[in-house]
């Protein structure tokens, strides 16, 4: 099992309920495939640095989860099918295995927030 973080951009035209549906669907998929959702963050609507599908704003959602690589592929496949998602990116979290990373990680995250 590896840890991943995925950011996806939902279309700004969707209302909050539609976005929630996508989030719940993604969570359900992750759990169904044996993954674990660690964190979900709604970053709200932001301006994009460039237009994506003719839209200059986007609703950012951040998710952190653990799972196997085929889970990531499946999540991305779902994003591709869903028209409400205009862009997505999954990144492997570069931490050492959880047991070792815990003491090292804590101060690192504090620094990132400052």
């Amino acid at each position, binding site marked *: 099992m590896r840890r991943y973080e995925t*950011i996806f951009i939902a279309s700004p035209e969707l209302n909050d309920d539609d976005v929630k549906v996508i989030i719940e669907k993604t969570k359900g998929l992750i759990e169904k495939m044996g993954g674990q959702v660690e964190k979900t963050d709604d970053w709200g609507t932001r301006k994009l*640095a460039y237009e994506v599908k003719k839209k200059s704003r986007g609703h950012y959602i951040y998710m952190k989860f653990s799972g196997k690589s085929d889970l990531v592929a499946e999540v991305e496949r779902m994003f591709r099918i869903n028209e409400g998602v205009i*862009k997505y*990116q999954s990144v492997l979290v570069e931490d050492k295995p959880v047991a070792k990373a815990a003491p090292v990680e804590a*101060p*690192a995250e504090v620094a*990132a927030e400052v």
Partner: protein
Amino acid sequence: MAVRQEREKRVFQKRKVCRYCADKNLVIDYKDFKSLKYFTTERGKIIPRRISGNCALHQRKVTVAIQRARNIAFLPFSAASSHPSH
């Protein structure tokens, strides 16, 4: 003699310390695009190491972080020219 003096002067002016080596608590993260912006030009290009002063290791990390930030539309691939005539 004059030329030599000038050269020495320039070397001293250019010496910059890698920000991330100087402060070990700084983390390079593609989500923190505001601090990555410091390493891009107005047009959105990545500033080379000889100017930014980063060490090789951290410059590589900054580059990857900028590329990731670009991909998820935090940073532009290229910004429009500020001159409307172009």
